């Protein structure tokens, strides 16, 4: 199996996967774990999923499921990424900044329902196509369109209120 191709993909997809996991509700360390677990899972089925369209939808579907599962039960030791001991993890960022940013994101998105948030993260931020988003979330493409506009409308509302009320809008 072509590890070089996979490695190149992992390098390229990593930042967006981590950001997406944060926007889906994870703390930064959990997001990194989720992104890692997702890529490991994809490695297994790499040869089965060939076309670029399929791959993106598949990868993000794995990510959404991983994030959702991690919220339902405590992070299990079986997950491959958890095999790495804490001190090995390179902290290339200031943990305080990380918490500030992720808190702000979670506050901003807290008004959205789960599905609406999933759609806006994948379609608007990750910029998957409508078809890829629909495949990743197992919904109809029309649903993606309607939920996206709903979500964007709600976000505009929250932002608007923040403007008006002087709440910190970050």
């Amino acid at each position, binding site marked *: 199996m072509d590890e070089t191709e996979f490695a190149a993909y*992992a390098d390229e997809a990593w930042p967006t996967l981590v950001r997406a996991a944060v926007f889906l509700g994870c703390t930064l360390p959990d997001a990194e774990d989720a992104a890692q677990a997702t890529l490991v899972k994809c490695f297994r089925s790499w040869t089965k999923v060939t076309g670029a369209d399929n791959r993106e939808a598949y990868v993000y579907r794995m990510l959404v499921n991983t994030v959702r599962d991690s919220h*339902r039960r405590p992070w299990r030791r079986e997950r491959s990424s958890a095999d790495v001991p804490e001190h090995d993890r390179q902290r290339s960022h200031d943990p305080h900044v990380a918490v500030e940013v992720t808190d702000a994101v979670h506050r901003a998105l807290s008004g959205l329902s789960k599905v609406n948030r999933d759609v806006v993260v994948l379609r608007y931020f990750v910029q998957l196509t409508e078809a890829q988003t629909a495949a990743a979330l197992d919904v109809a*493409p029309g649903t993606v369109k309607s939920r996206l506009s709903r979500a964007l409308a709600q976000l505009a509302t929250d932002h608007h209120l923040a403007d008006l009320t002087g709440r910190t809008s970050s």
Partner: protein
Amino acid sequence: MTDLERLWDDVPVGPAPTDRILRAARREQRAWRRPLLRSSGTVLALGALAAAFVAGTSVTGGPGGRGGTPGAGGGGGDVAEFSGALVAAGSCEALLEHYVAAGQELVGPWGWEQQWPVMARAGGAALRDLTLQRGGFAADQAKVTRATSSDTGTNVQEAGVDEPDLVKTDGEVLYRYADGRLTSYDVTGPEVERIGSVALAGTADAEILLAGDTVVVVGDDRVQTVDVSDPAAMEPRTRVDLTSPVVTARQHGDDLRLVISTGLPELDFVQPNRRRGVTTAEAQRRNRALVADTTIADWLPRASVDRGPEEQLSDCADVAIPSTTAPLGTTTVLGFGADDVAAWDVTAIAADASTTYSSTDHLYLATSSGWGWDGWGCATCTSRVVPTAGDGTTQVFDLELDGTGTRYAGAGRVDGAVRDRWAMDEVDGVLRLALSPTSETGRGNAVVTLRRDGDELLEVGRLDDIAPGEDITAVRWFDDLAVLVTFRQVDPLHTIDLSEPATPAMLGELKIPGFSSYLHPLGERRLLGVGEGPVPARGGRTSWGAQAGLFDVTDLTDVRRLDTVDYAPGSRAGVASDPRQLAWLPGIRTVVTVVAHGRTGHVSVLRLADGRMSNELVLAERGSDVDAVRLVPLAGDRVVLVTEDDASYLDVRPPSGPRDRATD
């Protein structure tokens, strides 16, 4: 949004730990290749998943059945006759010609224009110059009347018209739908007892309707009926898959109707590309050609019954084409009896008119003026002026209900935008609309009354200039009265007399900080408003959070707020975005409603007495979907609290004796 976009970039992401990933993956693979018996489950599951994936991604937007004749599965009802504002297409060629012509005008160099909804932002100081017309009408003609849940336990808009929900009950058995599973509970005993459950292959995102012995599961693109004559052995019956999403559904007795919205087809549009020599003009030309090449299957929804062959829902010839400009798309009303889904009645209009309001005998479909505002509406949308893809007017189509079918009754057009279904109401043949301003109107909101004359809906009365510069956030209609809440920074609650349709008149207004997103009438004298407002925070400061207000509406010219309940800073009232997260128990004068804070959901038990409200919070849900929490009222002043995992009685008995609080 730009703040969020900045936050996206600000997330501190290090380099990919690719080596570590490869090591972990190789380790897994080695474990995986050991005894096939242990790991074969995983192998098969992955294979199936990936295979389903590869197959699944080709399903979107492919050309389905060509031609226009529906198969034997659908139809059977009378065809609606159209006239005036709507004209039957007469043939597939004529219908396709309409779609292509309108589509070519709409397509630009990048594809369909205005792909993203345009968000107008607030700006400038709040200047309110409300012109009030204090009418000399006897206020006792206009009255607030109590609203209660439907017979199946859902807090609906119109009495007698049921709506889908996650939970339904007939008073003895309660049905809950979650994550692809329908579960039944006995709610006659001292404890809620689970009876049975059935898994339904399908999207987790669905709601149910209850009609006699049938539960109808309505998903985004799928309908599944389940025979529940024996709640211990529920049996799936018929399944209908659709190629376009179901926007909403309504139930009248045993007749069900779905509104299906087919948007613009996803075509392989080109974009201007200087490097490749594709100019803007060339891109537009190519995109117009793509539109010209579409077939009727790209524009009309299709259905397949029990995984049978896909058939077009409507006969092309019967699809109604608007005589004047209307947003492009197709809106289909599919009506059927719960016991025989496949024998459906169809009415289709070649316009995007999916904002649906149903009274007990009419279905009204309104076009959305703004691109992207869909059928569900957005109760707290706050663009100053609703952006228009069209001409700043709204067309309303009036369909008379006839068994499981509908008969075209008429159409009308008004200046302004109908934000969502709550902005429409019909009483005694008079259609009332609460209109928001558009680029074509003045800055104020309006209440307009219309009556049908022949096949035209004509304006008979109008009240203009309501709260210019403010957004309508909530509307409640009564026989002779409308209560309207607008918001800029302060919440004027307006009462409008509708006893004389030709002359709607402003009765009074109340200014309070914050706003109500949801109004619930409790009786002639009391109205509950739930929304947001300034709430006390630690250290004596003021913050912003969910809020409930009790209003005295005995004198409609002088509405007063009697009491408020402030929730924690940063909390939000679930009912603001979903009316089904509230139930009113008149017998014990108690309101139960969901208040969320982050990912924790509480039920707020509001007890009303002597013009005051007391609040008690009961923990309901943590971590999972707080939006899925439901409160179902039953006879005997009981309430069932339904969360994603469980259904149980909620103890709402008033604390007896000295502060006897229920435990969390």
